[in-house]
């Protein structure tokens, strides 16, 4: 009896480990193309994503109906602030429209081709940083919506959020810029003709830094930092953040700039996916 029981236990553990190995191998094989394997994709799309979308909607409802009641006194003040902000933005918008019209007219005069803006796909964040092991988020859009591995993801304010890591038909995982494995070519706009180039990296602790900046580059707190467009993966001039602190490594004659990120990585609810970025390495 005891032997039989031990055999059953050992057999169960062995079977579970074998299945684990098999699924991991399947996942690794599919991972080379950046697509989720069949089991993971199906389980995520049919099992987790619908529940996470429902949970997200429930959270929104709670925030809108119950949370707003609790936030009562602060709402009037926030409303007044937003109204003032709308006025300022409306004025800026009008100015930008006139500048855009002028830009189009001048481009026409100079014979430049029209640069068609990349189409954006709105996506909902259904899981944010589910593991402390890495900074990732899950979106409710997948390969059926045109998302592919290495698609670029932007915050509602246009700041870079990261790039798509893994795609299932109805969902995808995004590696955030703040992850320790993320890096992107960066350009610091320090009010000179051509600002210094560097490499923007996440540190896995929610911060961004630009490394490999020349020691003679004049950097100031508040300087805007955008993507450099070098390397061809990320488009140029996407905001990354603003310089917050500068450190100098005298031994290597290099500067490092600690950034204040443009995107609020801890409170992302909706994002945009750049649709027509060509897949890299896939």
């Amino acid at each position: 009896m005891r032997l039989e029981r031990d055999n059953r236990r050992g057999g169960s553990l062995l079977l579970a480990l074998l299945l684990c190995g098999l699924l991991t191998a399947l996942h690794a094989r599919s991972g080379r193309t950046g697509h989720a394997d069949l089991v993971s994709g199906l389980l995520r799309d049919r099992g987790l994503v619908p529940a996470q979308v429902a949970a997200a909607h429930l959270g929104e409802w709670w925030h809108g109906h119950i949370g707003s009641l609790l936030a009562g006194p602060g709402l009037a003040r926030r409303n007044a602030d937003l109204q003032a902000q709308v006025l300022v933005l409306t004025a800026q918008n009008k100015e930008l429209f006139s500048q855009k019209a002028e830009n189009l007219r001048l481009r026409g005069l100079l014979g430049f081709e029209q640069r068609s803006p990349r189409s954006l796909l709105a996506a909902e964040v259904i899981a944010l940083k589910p593991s402390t092991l890495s900074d990732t988020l899950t979106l409710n859009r997948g390969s059926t919506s045109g998302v592919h591995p290495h698609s670029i993801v932007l915050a509602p304010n246009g700041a870079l959020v990261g790039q798509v890591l893994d795609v299932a038909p109805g969902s995808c995982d995004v590696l955030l810029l703040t992850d320790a494995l993320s890096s992107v070519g960066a350009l610091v706009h320090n009010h000179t003709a051509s600002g210094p180039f560097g490499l923007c990296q996440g540190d896995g602790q929610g911060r961004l830094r630009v490394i490999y900046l020349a020691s003679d580059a004049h950097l100031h707190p508040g300087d805007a930092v955008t993507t450099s467009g070098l390397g061809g993966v990320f488009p140029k001039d996407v905001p990354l953040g603003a310089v917050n602190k500068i450190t100098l490594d005298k031994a290597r004659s290099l500067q490092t700039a600690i950034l204040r990120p443009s995107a609020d990585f801890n409170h992302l609810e909706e994002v945009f996916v750049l649709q027509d970025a060509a897949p890299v390495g896939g």
Partner: protein
Amino acid sequence: MTPVRHFLVVALLLWLAAVGQGRLAQAMSIGIAQPDLPLVVLSCGAVLVGWIGGTWLGFWAGLLTAISFPSAYGSLFFSRIAAGTFAGVIGRSLTRNNLLVPLLVTLISTLIAEFLTALTAPSYAVHHLRHWGLQLGGKLIYNSLLALPVSLLLRVLRVGVVEEDTFGNRL
């Protein structure tokens, strides 16, 4: 309830925990301490369902965790099977009615799962050793504290409560 029903109840709770992990873990984090809800449910549930149930609950928890984090798929999968099996095995040797049991089992299961993950996917832990250590410490405390309400919930759901087995045929 039959053992299969116990297993299914914990498996359902694991699925809810995996959904909650994506929606709530970030909001629940205190400093760098972030709970691992599926791991807490796994530890508390596996103690009550025994060795074989614990192994398969670990398999289910591993799959749910791994699909949310594809970069360390195999490591997370394997570590959860190990944690579930450990909790299932140790559950037989302990007095399940003691409230300290789920707390201690969760603490050790978390330690096992995190060390196995770090061992099989070492890139983050090696490069950010101090931060990883702090996160691990925070997670150990957070998970252990969450084990109390989770084990109470499992008790309310009567998971692990079995009819008296006079002839000792229970697995």
